[in-house]
């Protein structure tokens, strides 16, 4: 009776090893144990064959590929991230190299004053590094929308959503939606609209509150003047609050609509 229970326990234990047997992931001792069991257990032997078949059949399923428009958007986002962060890494690496040279110099010639020199040097590094990250107090969401604008200026417009139903947050006379697509600003989902206004193309990007109000400069400007404006790489960026989140309007300064003619939708 006891041996029957032991055999049943072994049967249950081995069932959890059958995948390992099929995939050749068992060690020699385990494989021998399973093989001995399979010789006397038809149910487990059948299970092994079914698992082999499933493995082969599932392995033959082709992998979906991204659509060209999706690849283009991904390329855009990653290129921006790589450029920004890559430059930072390069600067830090250069600093580290310089720090190494300096340290050797100080060690060789100024050993007596080394403590002070090193302290001053490290303070310089910290200040330089902090200011390097945001050389002009740059705002990530502004940098991202400018990069998005620069991308659509040289690439085919993404057209992920039907233009007819697209409703950009801002409208003004002679504004016409050319394309609408999802993007990411400051790492968060956002909705972008390319809008033709006379002979200029402007970009509207609707972002969430968390992104819009993240920067103190923007918060203060919106509280004081109802909007935040900045010139970045020759483009004007206007940040306007919406009911839930905010709008970033990007384009050439001369192509921006007058505030008086522009109406904002509530979302």
């Amino acid at each position, binding site marked *: 009776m006891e041996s029957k229970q032991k055999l049943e326990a072994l049967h249950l234990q081995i069932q959890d090893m059958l*995948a390992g047997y099929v995939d050749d992931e068992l060690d020699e001792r385990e494989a021998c144990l399973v093989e001995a069991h399979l010789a006397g257990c038809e149910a487990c032997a*059948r299970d092994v064959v079914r698992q082999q078949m499933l493995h082969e*059949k*599932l392995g033959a399923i082709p992998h979906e590929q991204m659509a060209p428009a999706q*690849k283009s958007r991904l390329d855009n986002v990653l290129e921006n*991230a790589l450029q920004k962060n*890559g430059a930072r890494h390069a600067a830090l690496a250069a600093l580290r190299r310089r720090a190494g040279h300096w340290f050797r110099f100080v060690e060789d010639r100024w050993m007596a004053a080394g403590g002070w020199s090193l302290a001053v040097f490290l303070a310089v590094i910290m200040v330089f590094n902090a200011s390097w990250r945001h050389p002009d107090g740059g705002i990530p969401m502004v940098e991202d929308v400018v990069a998005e604008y620069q991308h659509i200026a040289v690439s085919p417009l993404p057209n992920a959503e039907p233009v007819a139903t697209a409703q950009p947050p801002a409208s003004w006379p002679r504004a016409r939606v050319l394309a609408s697509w*999802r993007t990411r600003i400051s790492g968060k*989902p956002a909705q972008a609209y390319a809008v033709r206004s006379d002979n200029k193309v402007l970009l509207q990007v609707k972002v969430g509150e968390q992104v819009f109000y993240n920067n103190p400069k923007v918060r203060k400007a919106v509280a004081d003047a109802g909007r935040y404006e900045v010139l970045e790489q020759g483009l004007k960026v206007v940040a306007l609050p919406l009911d839930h989140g905010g709008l970033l309007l990007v384009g050439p300064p001369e192509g921006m609509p007058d505030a008086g003619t522009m109406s904002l939708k509530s979302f």
Partner: protein
Amino acid sequence: MKRQEKFQRLVRPWQDRLYAVALRRSGNSAVAEDRVQDALLRAWRDFDALADEISVYAWLLKILDHVSADEHRRDQRRQQLAPVISTGEPLLQKHPCAAPGPFEQTLQGQQHEQLLAAVESLPDDFAMVVMLRDIEGLSYRDIAQVLEIPKGTVMSRLSRGRRLLARLLLKQAEPNQMPDCENGALT
């Protein structure tokens, strides 16, 4: 610049495969695109942490898994009951289609989409290991690292997951194919 080049060389070739996984998991191309984008941005942020003991693809899948988990979908699915069936399960024993030959024919009759839907309908813990092993071709060691579970757990979940999948496929095929199965001549 070397870091960028290394990232482009090691990581970017996997973006389509990541998308395929994200699409299978979410069933929505826009969500899949967002998840891949998030995963690749995190990969770039944490690129220096990529260790030699894990393959690049497994590392990326681990990040993608974390991105998906952040959206709570997986945690909701984890609450599903995870049945454990034995090789002695009545359906597998009584049903002639469960025998190797007829089962193979049952399997051949399945479209890829049907198979993927069947895998996705498994409880999440099982669906993940079946997908990572059988569709993505990862080793048990890599799966263990992706899911942060012991290798033995990978093996038991895979054994049970495949068994559940076989039962599910047999159940789906049952209404139409049962008579042919019984004659051992499934068409």
